[in-house]
């Protein structure tokens, strides 16, 4: 009984009828009415003449997803992606907010670039784009970014992602300074002197394939260093894309010690292993690299037992000609926004509510967005929602992705579950699996 989306909302708003709401409070079979960007009522709602009704029988109504880690490539690398195409991909994946990584050109280390990114996101109107800042100017690892200045325009998360901060002393100062301001520093853990020229995980596979390897220790050393710096300074740290068993173990121990450490993991690190590189296809080249089955299982366990707080996509678009270069010349990175839920649902042995938590309210808290995203589906809350088909099986066709690029590694992976509708501030930006703008 769903009717076509009108450009002007009826006075009775939009009613999502027949679905199951899942949020931080639990699971319940209620209808939801959205009016003027907020949730106006929940319960057993009859249709007013004036409401637009969307039948969501058999579907799940949940707070929209929040991605802690997306590369939107704009400004500077727009052949791969723009803020608009990236936002559309995010909305189709069920995301109502994304944290945009700062390794753009120019870097997100000053107010003007941050404001540019935010306003591009606003005009696209598909997703809330929250720029992160870099830790060091130009991500060069030498001079600290003006944290307070960026915080004053709403930046909460800072990272040099793409690289880790190599200088231990500098990282300590950054934590002390930014921690005092209540900001969160996020680390791409990679000791660069151990990964020169590396193309894949260092192990048996790379020995046979004759490729330079990225040892697990290169990640674990920096995970350990940052945990100890947190212990020293008391400032919080968020660890990006954990990929090794030992990294997960280190974080588990840090949390047991009560340290303010949070962590994320990507869908590809819970579903793909280094053996994929046997085809030498650069679609499988990523930093940190795909690891062994033992690492994949440890990361899955970490997500299930709460050691890892969130799933984050590390969505990294690259144009086809870049990914068709020989493996060592191709840039690392994979798409992730549109497939994240489908991969996570297929590979994690988790209750749907726990999974939604990993993608919604838990990353919202880390990103400092918990006042607007990941909220309970209750009267008065902002209407940033996703309506999910939780169990439908599907496969991804790279030619039909909204992203400007096509570098998804999941074309022959069976996916489970997908966003059907996405609401941003009460507006349906995705209806029936298609973007409305």
């Amino acid at each position, binding site marked *: 009984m769903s009717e076509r989306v009108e450009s002007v909302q009826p006075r009775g708003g939009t009613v999502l009828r027949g679905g199951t709401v899942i949020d931080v409070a639990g699971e319940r079979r209620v209808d939801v009415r959205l009016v003027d960007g907020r949730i106006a009522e929940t319960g057993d709602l009859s249709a007013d003449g004036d409401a637009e009704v969307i039948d969501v029988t058999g579907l799940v109504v949940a707070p929209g997803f929040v991605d802690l880690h997306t590369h939107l490539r704009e400004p500077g690398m727009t052949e791969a992606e723009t803020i608009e195409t990236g936002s559309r991909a995010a909305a189709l994946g069920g995301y109502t907010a994304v944290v945009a990584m700062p390794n753009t050109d120019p870097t997100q280390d000053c107010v003007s670039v941050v404001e540019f990114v935010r306003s591009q996101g606003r005009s696209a109107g598909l997703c809330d784009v929250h720029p992160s800042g870099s830790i060091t100017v130009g991500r060069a690892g030498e001079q600290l970014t003006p944290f307070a200045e960026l915080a004053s325009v709403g930046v909460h998360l800072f990272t040099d992602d793409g690289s880790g901060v190599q200088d231990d002393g500098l990282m300590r100062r950054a934590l002390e300074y930014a921690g005092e301001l209540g900001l969160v520093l996020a680390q791409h853990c990679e000791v660069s002197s151990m990964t020169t020229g590396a193309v894949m995980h*260092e*192990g*048996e596979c*790379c*020995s*046979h*394939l*004759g*490729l330079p*390897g990225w*040892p697990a220790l290169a990640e674990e050393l920096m995970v350990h260093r940052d945990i100890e710096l947190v212990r020293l300074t008391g400032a919080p740290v968020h660890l990006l894309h954990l990929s090794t068993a030992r990294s997960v173990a280190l974080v588990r121990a840090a949390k047991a010690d009560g340290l303010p450490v949070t962590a994320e993991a990507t869908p590809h690190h819970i579903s793909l292993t280094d053996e994929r590189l046997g*085809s*030498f*296809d650069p679609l499988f080249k990523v930093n940190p690299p795909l690891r062994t089955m033992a690492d994949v299982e440890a990361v899955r366990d970490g997500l299930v037992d709460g050691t890892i707080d969130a799933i984050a996509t590390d969505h990294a678009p690259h144009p086809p*000609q870049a990914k*068709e*270069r*020989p*493996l*060592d*010349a191709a840039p690392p990175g994979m798409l992730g926004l549109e497939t994240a839920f489908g991969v996570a649902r297929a590979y994690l042995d988790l209750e749907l509510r726990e999974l939604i938590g990993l993608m919604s309210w838990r990353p919202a808290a880390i990103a400092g967005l918990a006042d607007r995203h990941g909220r309970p589906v209750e009267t008065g809350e902002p209407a940033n929602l996703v309506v999910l088909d939780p169990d439908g099986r599907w496969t991804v066709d790279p030619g039909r992705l909204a992203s400007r690029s096509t570098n998804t590694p999941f074309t022959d992976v069976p996916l489970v579950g997908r966003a059907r509708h996405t609401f941003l501030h009460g507006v349906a930006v995705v209806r029936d699996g298609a973007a409305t703008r």
Partner: protein
Amino acid sequence: MDTRRHLRGIGDLDRAALERLLDLTDHMAEVGRRANPKVPALRGRTVCNLFFEDSTRTRMSFDTAAKRLSADTMTLAVGSSSVNKGESLRDTVETLGAMGVDAFVVRHRSSGVPWRIAEWTEASVINAGDGWHQHPTQALLDLYTIRSERARRLGEDAGFEGLRVGVIGDIRHSRVARSLTEALGLLGAVVVHIGPRTLMPPTPLARSTDDLDGELEDLDVVYLLRMQNERMDAALIPSGEEYTRRFALDPQRAGRLGEHVLVMHPGPMNRGVEITVDPTTLPGAVVTTQVTNGIAARMAVLFDLLGGVETEVSA
């Protein structure tokens, strides 16, 4: 079922296929001894040499092999610095393929390129060396050399089963070592890798040791790898002198080799680095034979992929 076949790595062969190629090499070696060393077997076929890495010797060896089979050849020799400026690897392959190429012979400094090229063409793909990964025709000519030279010295069919081969040097960065080790493994030979830990792959591909002197007297074949200058720059070994002292075939070590032990090298040799004796004084040195056999081995591969080999036909 895809009937097109490739030789991208030793992994594309099983034991039977490898032995068949060695037997075919015998035929091709005989062709090479004729007054007119040319047969019309691949007339009308086109072989394209795609060499993205400088290598005059290997390229000429393949070119000669194709011509001796009466195939037409084309060569695209691109210096390593001008690769991928504008026209992508894929575009290059697809354009050349449209000109009617039956086989690509590919050398590239990046591991895996022959596998990628095989995705973009209907032609057969022959790997002439990809990064540190594989160099299957080198392994083939090395195996053929071992077989024929041992037959000459020890009598008919000395065989590979239990043969003890020491590969010495920079295994980590050596496609020759990887292909040879894999091929010898297929035939039941026993391989030991000898060199410093920093020049071994992260996980071993064969029994590995740094004790050359301890292994030397137990070897039937000593295979020396070329030691490249870049390794000395990259702090993988302290100096060339250290390497030579610990791992070179010097006069003292050469003197301790058994009577019929073969000494091999993929070439070109760094005299004074991995070898400090004059190889012409070593009865077991078969390096020039390796080069001759290279043409025959490559002819065998080309004929096998483009000529069709299955069961016998009657006249």
